[in-house]
Structures are given as C-alpha cells and as structure tokens.
C-alpha cells in the first residue's frame, strides 16, 4: 500500500465521503462493532453458509426462469425446436418448460443450476442440522433457532415439491397425483381439503397456477424472513465454539469479521455457485423432455423423486396395507399413516428435541461450548438410530431400482425395509454407544499414558516396551495429569510436532532449508518451557511406570 497520506487517515476523498455518510446515519459505531465481531473457525460451521448461498443462487436462477415459465394447464400442440415431441398435445406449462430448455439461450444451464442448487440447498440444511444436533449446539439458549431451522427444512421440502411439479411432465404429474391421494387420505377433512387445494377433483385446471405462486412468492418470502431471523439470532447469541485452549462459555475465539472471515465467506459463496454452475453444465438433471407430457394413464417404471422426498416414498412403500374401517362406511386409508403421520411425527420430534432433552437430562443451563459427539453417547446414539431409520426408508424409496440392478426379489426388498426399519435402528443405537465409549476411553488413555510412538525399546531387564510421548507433565507413576476437557486429543506424533514442516516451494525451494531448521528449533525452545513434555515413558504402569524399575526410562527424543 504505497500511499502518501498519514498512516492513520484514509485517503482524503474517501475520508470526506465517509464523514458525510456518518453525519447523516451515525453508523461508524455499529459498523465498527460489526467489523470487529469475532467468528469461530471450524469447517463444520460452513455448512449453514452453504445452505444460505444455495438459497441466494436459487433466488437468482429462479427469477430468470420466471421470465419464461407459464403455469397454465391449457392444452396446446408443441411446435418448438425439439423434434421428437413436435405435434404432441401438452400443457402450456410443459411447453414453456421445454422452451426454457431448448429455445432460450442458456436457459437449460440456468434451469439446471436451479435444480442442482435446490438439491444442494436441502442437502446443506440437513447436514447443517446434523452438525447442530450431534454437537449439542441446539441447547439453551438456542432452542428457538433450532426450531426455526426445522421449519426452514420443512419449507425447503415444500419448495422442492412445488418446484418439481411445475414442469408438468410425466414424472412431476405422477408426484402430484400421489400428493392428491395423500390429501384425500386425511380422515374427515381430506376431501374438503382436496377440493380447496385443487378447486375440485384431481387434476382441475388451477393447481399449477396455485403451486406456482406458492413456489415463487409465498414460500420464498417466508423462507427469506426466517433466514433473516435465524441469522439475527445467531449474531445476537454469538456463535458456539468447540472447547479448546482459552475458549470458555463466556467468550468467542476466532477471526474478526473483517477482513479474514468476510473474505473466506465470500470465497465460499463463489465456490458454491461455481460448483452448481459446473454441475449444471456437465451433469444433466431432470431431462423432462424424455418423460413426455403428463398423462394420468401413463407412468414410467423406476421413476424416482428428488432425493429429499425419497424417505417419504420409502415409508409409503413399506407401510402394510392396513385400512382402518370404521362403522358407517368411514375409512382411515393406509396411505395416511406413512405420509402424514410418520412424516409429521418425525418433524415434530425433531423440532421438540431440545425441549425433550432438557426435560430428560434436567440440564437447564446456558451452553455456548459445543460437545464432541463421543462425549454425549446417548444423544449421539439416538441420532444414529434416527439416521438409520431415515436411511432404511430412503433406501426403500429406491427399492425397485436396487431389486432391478442387483437382481434381488422386489418383495424381498420390501420385507427387508419393513423389518429393517424396526430392527436396525436399535442395533445402530447400541453400536454407536459402544463406539462413543471406545473413543472416550482412547482419549483418556492417551491423556494418561501418552501417544504411542511406535518405538519399541528393550529394557536392561530384557523386557520390551513401547515408548509413549506424554502430552503434559507426568506424576511419579508416569501418568499424565491433563484432564479431558472435551477438546480433541492428539493421537499421532505429527500432531504434536513430531515431524517438521516441509520446505515451501513448488519447482524449487523458496525458503532456505536452514531457516526452516532454525524456525523448528526456535519452536522447540518455546515448547521447552514445559520441560516434562519431552519426557518419554512407556506410559503403562505395568511397564516403565513402576517405581521399582527406577521410575520411567529417561531417554532423549528421537
């Protein structure tokens, strides 16, 4: 920055403009507070950001699509550029969707960006939700934000459904037919709701127009407002952080918003956008010109919904044929249970989980430090159990494809799913619980006995021991005195500086190897303050730790 101005003043013109703005808005104070806001740094904190950026991409690409799309169900004859469908009767909606794909310059790219970004949007929300769940970030005071997040997930699914219905191709029409049947299956009010939504019997001629306005106006407005609230609460309550040196319940350790965090966040937006654009160009998605226009009498075998609806498809396939026949010719259709009840119960439980956990554990305190999943085995195992249940449903949503590709009986796949969704989740619970305990135990063992170095030594007595590197001061038995504090414990020598860093440079070194060596030695001197760090023991009391053996073997490093 070669400038001629005094070091503590910005360039005069900018300074003047900034003063003019501040005279009017008095924003210098709030702006400084915002720029100084500290954000903790961890890769898993980026997942929510990915969801946010996908939504921005969806808004941009979706706006483009609205310029060309027509949600009309009136019949017309296709006369566009795509020869295989020329002369076919279809709705204006399908015709205009074909137009976006074939007659609008770059339209196919934007449409596929929109679809890929939608898949990524839901995926990022789900993975973000799992991160929040497994690290306990939903605990007091963040239960409200968890609830908002679950509502956002449900709205994202609704966005997905309304969106993929719009092209009015054979696949989306089949999906709409199933939704119509689901609405009809609601006891007592089902037919009334159906008549309100579809303006009569299936399919009528208003439904696409209604779904369109829901998709482009109502849902995006609600989602936008909830995202704003989600972020406001995040900023107000500050971000959680993993436990670590200097991190407490009363501070946040990380980077200030400007410039480091803002730079990384902007970079992530471009990378997410770039990935969507690259996928959109290179990987075809929903080529609906191959399915043809919707016809209630036709369906294609092996048709699949977008991935996030798969679990509902699966639960619907698995649920047994149990109509409940009530007296007086009233029926609760079997379809009602796997679609409305199971899905409703899943999302209700999810939304209420923070309250349930608070009730069961009696933990009423505010928490700002995250937990590692292994330290909360019950919650982690519950999560694994829920994921297993979801996974079996999801897999069953494609059980016809699995049966076909692997040459398995279709009915066997259905029975696998029916039994699996009951039997596998408890197994997942038990296995996860054991894994959590095992990981905990290993952490504590490393803290107590040090890192296994892989160096085998023979003692004068002839006994062989493995040399352990303690992580901190040790007592007279050679046991480490560090207590476990919920932070990651190094398990390999390289994580505690066992290897030196590489000399930088690609074709030729751009650093003097001697300087790197010096730097490494300097760092070692810095560490030497805690002299005990270097003591090498076998760790196990049965080995070098016995006082009878004259204390632990004292050997230089390396």
């Amino acid at each position: 920055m070669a400038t001629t101005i005094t070091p503590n003043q910005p360039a005069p013109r900018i300074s003047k403009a900034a003063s003019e703005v501040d005279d009017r808005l008095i924003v210098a104070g709030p702006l400084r507070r915002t720029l100084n806001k500290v954000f903790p740094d961890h890769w898993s904190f980026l997942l929510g950001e990915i969801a946010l950026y996908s939504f921005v991409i969806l808004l941009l690409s979706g706006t483009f699509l609205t310029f060309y799309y027509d949600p009309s169900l009136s019949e017309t004859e296709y006369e566009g550029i795509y020869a295989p469908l020329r002369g076919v009767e279809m709705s204006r909606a399908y015709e205009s969707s074909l137009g976006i794909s074939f007659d609008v310059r770059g339209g196919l790219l934007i449409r596929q960006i929109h679809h890929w970004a939608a898949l990524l949007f839901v995926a990022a929300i789900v993975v973000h939700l799992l991160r929040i769940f497994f690290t306990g970030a939903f605990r007091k005071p963040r239960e409200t934000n968890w609830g908002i997040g679950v509502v956002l997930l449900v709205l994202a699914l609704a966005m997905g459904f309304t969106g993929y219905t719009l092209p009015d191709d054979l696949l989306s029409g089949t999906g709409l037919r199933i939704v119509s049947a689901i609405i009809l299956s609601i006891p007592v009010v089902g037919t009334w709701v159906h008549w309100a939504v579809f303006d009569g019997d299936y399919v009528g001629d208003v439904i696409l127009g209604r779904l369109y306005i829901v998709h482009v106006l109502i849902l995006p407005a609600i989602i936008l407002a909830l995202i704003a609230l989600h972020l406001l609460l995040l900023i107000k309550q500050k971000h959680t952080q993993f436990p670590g040196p200097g991190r407490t319940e009363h501070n946040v350790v990380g980077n200030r918003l400007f410039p480091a965090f803002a730079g990384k966040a902007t970079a992530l937006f471009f990378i997410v956008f770039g990935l969507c654009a690259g996928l959109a160009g290179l990987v075809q998605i929903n080529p609906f010109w191959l399915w043809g226009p919707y016809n209630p009498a036709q369906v294609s075998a092996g048709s699949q919904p977008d991935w996030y609806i798969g679990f509902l498809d699966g639960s619907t396939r698995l649920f047994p044929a149990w109509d409940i026949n009530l007296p007086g010719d009233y029926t609760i259709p079997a379809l009602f249970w796997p679609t409305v009840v199971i899905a409703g119960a899943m999302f209700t439980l999810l939304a209420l989980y923070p309250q349930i956990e608070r009730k069961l554990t009696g933990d009423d305190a505010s928490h700002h430090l995250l937990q590692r999943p292994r330290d909360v085995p019950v919650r982690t195992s519950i999560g694994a159990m829920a994921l297993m249940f979801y996974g079996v449903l999801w897999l069953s949503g494609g059980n016809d494809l699995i049966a076909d590709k692997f040459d398995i009986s279709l009915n066997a796949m259905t029975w696998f799913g029916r039994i699996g969704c009951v039997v596998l989740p408890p197994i997942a619970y038990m296995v996860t619980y054991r894994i959590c305990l095992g990981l905990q135990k290993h952490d504590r063992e490393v803290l107590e006995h040090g890192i296994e170095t892989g160096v085998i030594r023979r003692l004068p007595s002839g006994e062989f021991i493995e040399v352990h590197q303690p992580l901190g001061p040790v007592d007279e038995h050679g046991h480490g005195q560090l207590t476990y504090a919920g932070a990651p414990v190094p398990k390999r020598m390289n994580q505690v500086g066992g290897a030196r860093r590489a000399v930088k440079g690609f074709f030729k070194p751009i650093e003097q190897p001697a300087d790197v060596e010096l730097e490494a030695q300097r760092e070692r001197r810095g560490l030497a303050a805690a002299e005990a760090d270097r003591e090498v023991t076998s760790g196990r009391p049965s080995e070098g730790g016995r006082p009878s053996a004259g204390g632990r073997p004292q050997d230089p490093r390396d």
Partner: protein
Amino acid sequence: MSKDDRAGSRPEDEAGPLHGGPDEDYTPEQLAGMDREELNRLGARYDGVEVLHVDPPPAPGSALEKQAERQVSMAFGIAGLFALAFAVVYFGSGWFLPDWQWASDDNGWSALYTPLLGVGMGGALIFLGVGMVLFVKKLLPHETAVQDKHDGSHFDRTTTAATLMGGVDRVGFPRRKMIGRSLGFAGGALGLVLIAPLGGLIKNPNKGNPLGTTEWAEGVRLVRQDGSPVRPGDQEPGSLETVFPAVPGGNLAADAATMLIRLRPEQMSLLQPREGQADFGYGDYVAYSKICTHAGCPVSLYEQETSRILCPCHQSQFDVIQGAKPVFGPATRPLPELPITLDDEGYFVARSDYIEAVGPTYWNRERI
C-alpha cells in the same frame, strides 16, 4: 474526525460524546497521535474484542510473498479466462460458431453448448473463490481474537420491566374491563373478516359424487389413446391394452383409464371374479381400472406369467385372476372392474360406470 473543517459548524454545534464513554476518554488530539493499528486495537477493545495473537503475513518482497501473489493472481487470471470463454461460447454460437440450438441432424455443437457454458461459468466462479481463499490464507495476517460474551443485565431487566408495566398501568386495561372486552370483540370480529375471503376456496366435495363417478357410462365405447375402438379379436391372449371412454377428452380424464386384458386359456380356468362380478368380463376379456387404489398412480406393469399387475410407484401388486385383488404391497383394495360387453357393431362398450369409486381410498368412500 475532521469536524472543524465543515462549513458552518460552530463549536457548540459539534457532535458531543453521544454514548458517554469513548469520546470523553479520548480527545481528538489523543486519537490523532495514535497510528492505525493502535486505533484498530482500541476500537476492538471497546467492542469487547482482544486480539491475542497475530501470525504475520510473509514479509513484503520476500520470495514467499511473491509466490503467494503469483498463486492468487494466477487463480484470478484463470477465472477471467473462464469467464471470457463463457462469453465467447454464449454470444458466439450462431454467429461465428455453429448454432447452439438442438437439432436432430447435428449432435455436435448443440450438445457441447450447455456443458461449455457450465464449465466457463463454474470455472470462473470456482477460481475466483479459490483465489480469494489463497489470498486470505497466504497474504493476510492470521489473527486470533477473543470476544467477550455478556450475560443478561439485571439492571436492564428491572428497568425495562418497570417501563413496560408502567405503560400497562397507564393504559389501565386490567381496570377498564369494558374497553378491554369490547376491543377483544372488535379484534376477533375483524380477524374473521380478514380470513373470510379464504372461504372462497371451500367447495363441497360431496355435491353429486365426483369421486365415485367417471366418464364411463352404459354404451360408451372402449377406445385406444388414438380414438380407435377395440374388437375382441384385436388382442393376443395374455396381452393388455389401455383403453379410454369414447367421450371428448376421455383420453386425458384423470380417473377413467382402464386396462383391457385378454386372459390366456389357463388363466381363464383359474379365474375367480369378485363376488357378484362374475359377469363383468366378456369372454376371455376383463377390464380393470388403471388407477391404483393406493395412491392413484397408473398401474401398468403386467406380468402375464404370474397374472400380476405391479404399480411402479409403491409396488402394490394385484392378481388379475383373483379379481385384481391386492396380493402384496401397500394397496388395500382390488382394482375396480368395469362391466363390459359388445355393441351392435361388435366393439367393446361399457355396460355402466364402475360400480365403486376408482383410485385412492378416502374418508367417506362407500364400501361394496
């Protein structure tokens, strides 16, 4: 702050210490004496932020810095090239490049067009992002900052509660019950007015019997998708054909699609029609609704060796020789059978509409 050089500003007009603290603690002269880094840290401290540790960026002019600068510039440069490539493909197609539009005879450029656009746009955005990441990682100082988190303030809670309750007292709703009640009445009634227009959506599904009837009726011919009528000799034994009622729009009607199946002789010997429906078929022909009784998908995968019809949506299976009874999967009811016969000219016609509702089950569906 250079307040003094503003035109028309008098000393007594100048912005004072609005928030108390900082402007009283530090005079403009003191601030002018600090360098930018000191000011930065000072401001941060006021926001509860302490910068603990700064890993400096590579020294200016060092080989390390030059390498980092080269990498960042290269990423930005590549991003620009990708963006330009996008523009060339986008605008050049149909100008100096071949036409981009889909054409059945040429599968070259039009098939490459969208992938090239995606690569151009994606590459430009990704390399822009990568360049920024490299910039932040390699050229910015890595600072570790700590910000305090404050608990709620007892003072704030107490004073805010007093202000709120004072206001409520002055309004006096707890005391002035009549106003409270009448306001509640007006609010409730107004709420009704606001949601009332949605009542226009409500329609009676039980007027007539829309869910229980289809376009089929006595004497309506069974026609194919293209409108041609069907004669008994048209189909091979064991085959299935989708037929529609010969009425305007019949081939797009949501619930009328019907499967006309010609049974093989060995199937005929095993045929067990549903009770009271033995005469619904005609000879070795039976006609079942194509709309699945589970979720309304068209069932259409007919496996004639096992006599089963499979719905591809949720894998319900119906046995044709047992009156299309569901034998596996989530469907609970048989596919309704359409009573058929021949008309004077020897074409298939319906003898009546379906005698029960076709398609998915609903609350008040009549059972037969």
